[in-house]
């Protein structure tokens, strides 16, 4: 049997410690050990984006990250997005625009959108489509997802101007 490893990390601004095997993916640790099941598994090989999380400001497919790699890192998952009193504006925009049907892809899209807007607060439609190309949605045809992202970018930018 493999030697278990003890890992200390930060998830959604909370200090988190866990024990894992070197072969465990971050996705499996999040979902099975830490019960953070908001991060979804669609393919387990980097092709759907359902497992998106942000590590130190970088968008990753958590199924392709080994859990041992996150020692000392700062991880953001879907569970950490909403504020104390309200949803995150991206979450609100997805609801307003009906940008989800089954919703399984939604956490991944919302995390990918957050990362996009952190880097580029004013993306064009083509930039949005390109940035979200790593996330598969089989239900919506992406139309309403792209609209939700356009909306939220507009709203945040207007606020910024005030």
């Amino acid at each position, binding site marked *: 049997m493999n030697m278990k490893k003890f890992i200390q990390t930060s998830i959604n601004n909370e200090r988190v410690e866990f024990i894992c095997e070197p*072969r465990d993916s971050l996705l499996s640790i999040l979902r099975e050990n830490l019960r953070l099941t908001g991060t979804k598994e669609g*393919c387990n*090989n980097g092709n759907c984006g359902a497992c998106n999380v942000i590590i130190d400001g970088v968008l990753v497919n958590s199924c392709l990250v080994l859990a041992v790699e996150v020692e000392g890192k700062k991880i953001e998952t879907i569970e950490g997005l909403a504020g104390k009193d309200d949803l995150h504006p991206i979450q609100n925009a997805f*609801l*307003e625009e009906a940008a*989800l049907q*089954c919703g399984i892809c939604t956490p991944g899209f919302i995390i990918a959108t957050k990362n996009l807007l952190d880097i580029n607060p004013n993306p064009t439609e083509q930039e949005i489509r*390109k940035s979200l190309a790593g996330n598969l949605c089989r239900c919506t045809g992406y*139309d309403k997802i792209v609209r939700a992202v356009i909306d939220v970018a507009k709203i945040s930018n207007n606020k910024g101007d005030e």
Partner: protein
Amino acid sequence: MQESNLVREKKKFQVIGTRPKRPDGTDKVTGRALYGGDINLPSMIYGEILRSPHAHAKIISIDYQEALAIEGVKAVITAEDFPSLEDVTKKVGEGAVNIRYRSNNILAKEKVLYQGHPIAAVAAKDKNIARLAIEKIIVKYEILSPVLDVREAMKEDAPILLEELRTVSMGEKIDKPTNIAKHIQLKRGNIEDSFAESDIIIEREFYTSMVHQGYIEPQSVTALYNNDGDISVWTSTQGAFIAQQQISDVLNIPLSKINVIPMEIGGGFGGKVSVYLDPVAILLSKKSGSLPVKITMSRKDVLMATGPTSGSYIKVKLGAKNNGIFTAVHAYLAYEAGAYPGSPVGGGAVSLFAPYKLDHLLIDAYDVVVNKPKSEPYRAPGTTNAIFASESIIDEIAVKLKIDPIELRLINAVKEGDRRIDGPTYGRIGLIEILEEIKAHPHYHSKLRGKYQGRGIATGFWFNYAGKSSVYASINGDGTVNLIEGSTDIGGSRASMAMQLAETMELPYESIIPKVVDTNSIGYTEGTYGSRTTYSTGWATHNLGNELIRLMKEKAAAHFETEIGNIVYSKGNFTSSDKEISFIDLAKLMKGNPVTASSSIHPKRASPGFGTHIVDVEVDPETYKVTILRYTAFQDVGTAIHPSYVEGQIQGGVVQGIGWALNEEYIYDDTGNLVNHTLLDYRMPTSYDLPMIDTVLIEVPDPDHPFGVKGVGEVPIVPPAAAIANAINDAIGHRLNRLPMSPKNIFESINQVK
């Protein structure tokens, strides 16, 4: 919000037609909603499945002693652990399934019939141990040659998949071994004479590959076989009662012992009706001494071994007069059923020319087994293949006769009173309205810009299904209403049920609290398929609302000390001459004296759906990559309850259709090995491949339904393949007869590569 895409006569509703947030929305954007794989029970163990590496082989022996001896392994099962079953055909969803075949598909008995066919299953205390144990199971095979092409499989000397299979041809059994499970013939009029009188006749062949529903959530099941024999199954399914029935059939256990608890579902599109893992998890739980067992498929398992829809070979001959009137159709359809009988070829045969008046047709359709996974329904099952063929030929006729493609369709379009080839007479359908709307739409009149750009149109059809639904409600002490239903919410149906109840009861949308519950907690309800939920469950909800209002009128009458006949209910208020009390105040007065009601419904029929799409494409002359420039889908939606979700259904269906048209296909090597079993190689459209998908919702209400609802979910996948093929022809003057229209296939078609 766009409102302008809604073509509606007059607005007579308060809640219907608005776009409120869905009741389950917050849970779904925060990651709190629990899907199939998100359940974690105390002492839960994990199941893994051993699958066949061969497409066609006899199982000589299975030895799992070494696997069982591994520390942490709790149980191993094979098909021997399943009861032996008679050949009994049962209704599952909209189709019928032989339960012995269903059982053999879940765990192979004697033979494996496709790569990925399950053979044995292990439960262990963690996934890694379960995987290790799977590797230690020794299976001896006698490898047989596989049959991978539908027409090869129909040949006299083809290897036989199922020794006992006999063709049922138009009701008669033909007594010799075969891979042809069924031959259906549809016939009307006299095609010979009508072809002889035609001015133009076009005959073409069409080929399509298997494609997958592509839901993002792989199948996942957790089951507990309790010490008292009661079974609980947590699963994401399109229909909890349909899952319960199949489990009961396959394991020979009474329905009442099985409670199916539906988790949130991450997409289905027809692919989450049949069960795969559920009976396996139940038996593993039993053998492990009543520990809950969770099994989740990998993406490779999903693609290799859950239902794609059929690949097909279709030949169509269509005749027409110079004035565009269609004269006769002769067609031949052969669909791959996969390993066991049951392709949707029957639906394909009927839908082929369902949008058009035709008095002379002869259509032969064949259901054929091949060494590929058992096909399962996929959104308008069987119809996309068929309409790719018919709408391509119709376009060719339009071009040859120099008739505008919309005009040609208008000349031949079915309307109320016309009879479909399988018997039913059309009711209030909206095909003419759709075609007229397109003629007036800016997209149809816009100019194309580039040399390699083209425009195509195609019409789609789907039967739509009604089916059985049950709902229950109780009025709370604060005037809100709990709405309990059995219909899986796969894309916003909690919202559309709450809206229909709110409309009926003249209450605000927010005061309805919908909940989808397990099979122990609600009356029988069929699955969410066939575009039936908003229609049938919505209708049941309407009846429920009326009953609740009647009961509340009784309470109001008692309160005012008068007869119920004197009570008038309007806009949330009960009145009797000069006295008035609001719904909320009356509910408050009733504390501890609840009002409850239930309603079950089985409408006889549902209005079929029609949609016509226009697409503009550009073909790269060097790489043959096809880019979608603009897309507009027009559909008769009856009444749009929540227009955003109606648009969403259409947009999603269109994009699945675009994927099918341009990229998606099952690629097998000669040994029956699925080559593209990842989402990198099984290439579904991404946001970067697409423009916005415009929709025009045309409301021609179903006169039977209390709100005029028509099913919308299936139709939109049907037209894209034909519309895009027609657009490619418009762009480069070359007709394609093979899906997908990938750069490779376009290149080969243009260069006549064989």
